[in-house]
């Protein structure tokens, strides 16, 4: 898994003047331009801001119709680019399921194969991915026996097994208890050291602990892009307090809403 880092440049995700609207609906993305660099980047935004649409475009579930969206050098407006991006991407959707009759190792190996690895490579790739998410000792367990946090880590391992340059996580800690959330965060932080990780979340703790950079999506554009301290400074300006806690959460919500209104 580490061989990719030693030989390849980490990939960036680049959006240039990206537009998208559903039929008969308002424009969801409106001239969005943004570069996601290697490391862990958080994607924040109020409900309906277009986070899900942006992720769907990124993982090629929706077609790019206006502007450009690049994963590394792969231009998602072209069929070849989409094909290349699919191999370069790992995605953990917010809601996914596991086949309970498969073991953890078989599940991850299956995902690696579905991502394009040869059958011979899949076993070893699965074990490496499971080691990365600290689940190697559960490799032989059926997935139906796993806890919520373990299932989430299996999902991450499945997205990692083909060694993607870009990992996209949609609400990776949603619905987990605090202990499991911490464990998943540790894993994601580790993964961000040698690849580009984009985390869509609404949990400020995730952003605070995980993300070296943050983008706030509102009105179809990235209205804020910076570090967590910069976001924190903006929150302090809104007189909510200097340390994050319950007051911070409320201030964060107000800020996100205000950025949305401003947009």
């Amino acid at each position, binding site marked *: 898994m580490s061989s990719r880092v030693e030989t390849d440049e980490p990939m960036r995700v680049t959006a240039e003047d990206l537009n998208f609207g559903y039929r008969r609906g308002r424009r969801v993305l409106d001239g969005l331009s943004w570069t996601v660099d290697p490391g862990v980047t958080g994607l924040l935004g109020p409900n309906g801001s277009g986070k899900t649409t942006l992720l769907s475009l990124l993982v*090629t579930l929706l*077609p790019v119709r206006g502007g450009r969206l690049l994963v590394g050098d792969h231009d998602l407006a072209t069929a070849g680019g989409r094909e290349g991006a699919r191999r370069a991407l790992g995605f953990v959707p917010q809601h996914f*399921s596991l086949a309970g009759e*498969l073991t953890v190792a078989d599940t991850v190996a299956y995902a690696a*194969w*579905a991502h394009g690895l040869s059958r011979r490579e899949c076993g*070893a790739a699965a*074990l490496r991915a499971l080691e990365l998410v600290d689940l190697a000792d559960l490799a032989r367990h059926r997935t139906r026996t796993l806890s919520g946090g373990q299932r989430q880590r299996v999902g991450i391992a499945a997205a990692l097994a083909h060694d993607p340059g870009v990992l996209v996580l949609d609400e990776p800690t949603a619905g987990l208890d605090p202990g499991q959330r911490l464990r998943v965060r540790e894993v994601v932080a580790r993964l961000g050291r040698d690849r580009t990780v984009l985390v869509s979340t609404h949990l400020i703790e995730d952003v605070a602990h995980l993300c070296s950079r943050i983008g706030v999506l509102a009105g179809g554009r990235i209205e804020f892009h910076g570090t967590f301290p910069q976001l924190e400074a903006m929150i302090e300006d809104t007189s909510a307090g200097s340390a994050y806690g319950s007051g911070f959460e409320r201030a964060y919500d107000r800020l996100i809403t205000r950025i949305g209104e401003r947009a």
Partner: protein
Amino acid sequence: MTSTCSRTRTRASVLFWPLPPVFVLVPAALILVLTLADTWSQLSWRALDWVYLSAEVGTRARLPVVVAAGAAALVGARFTRPGLVFAQRWQPRVERDVPWRHCAVVTGWCLTAYLVGLFPLTLAVAAYGAGVPDLTAIAGALTGFAALTLFGYLCGVTLRGPLAVPVAVGLVFLLASLPLVSDAWSALSLQPPVSPSLGTRESTAVGPYRIGFFLLLAVALAWTVAALLRTPRRFSAGYGLAVAAVAVAVVLPHLRPFPLLAHAGNGTEVCSERAGVRYCVHEGHRDELTTIADLATPVFAAYGLADAAPDEVRDLSLAESDGEIVRKSRKGTLWVGVPPGWEPEQEVPSPAAEWLVPDVFRCGSGGVASLAADAPPEARRAAVLADLRAWLITRAHEDGPVDDGVFAGAAPERVREWIRRNPERLSTCDVNPGELPWRT
């Protein structure tokens, strides 16, 4: 230790990859049991031949293919749901490689189990060694098996719920049974309504048409599965063309039905002569020649009139055309069918007796034969012919008198003498039960 386990496991699971073994082993075992149960009684059959076995590959697949389609539907429904972590639509292999592999594993196991189930019957046929395998019929059956399994998978991919399996099972059972409804479906299904055997074959058009149809169907189904799993879903012009071609292929045999069976016309005869009658069978039925002669000779002898016996008793497998059967029958040839599983004790004396004694319809009773006192005279005369036939049939196995009918208690010599004196009256159905000498 981990890597050793991994290597061992990988090697073992290659045959199932990427499915859990239970998803293919259970249907394969069921197919094996079904096939063995379905063919077990045939292992002791007489006159088995390769032509028959070739057709049976399709005929006996009717239930196994339903199981295979159900298994494929379960796999399609269970392992292609977009929520699954390994069935996400952006994963590069989801559109083609995954369904291809699923179908290859399910079809491979089910088809192998089916062929293993047919193996004992194949050995039994090989023991006789009559005829040659009809490779076109076998290829059509195997292609059909694969195509209908793929159809089951499509049901799973389309429905993706618990309904997928019963729907696939029901539809495939219906498709496999259509030839039983109408002959026109024979070119579009696994089995002919009548299995050919030695001396006959499927007509030239049916076999290749069936292979072509199932190949076309498989292509259209594969295309449909790929289109359903593609992101975004897209149905190309080529796909439309394939579906249209399948529709045309379904309609054609209904507009112009194919002849189903034809005479092979390539048999070498093996003959012998007994009591002035020549007996000839297909060389593949060589073992049956003596039996036929042994069972027919006493029937002809019991009738007594040498002129009444046929010049030749001939195996139907030797017929080169329907016209030849009619022509030679008129010139003194009695045709006897020797199909696989035949019972000569039943099937030789009966046509021999029918050859000697006119049909009861000649009596003018509308086919009714009765000895009742109040029965019309025609029916009573018809009873004499019917009982004479029955009496002649018993001659193949017995020498003495019979217990019932108008010939009850009559010594064979006496019957034979009576026949010798009344051939004309028998042929015109002019004998009343009351005038038979042993009844007066």
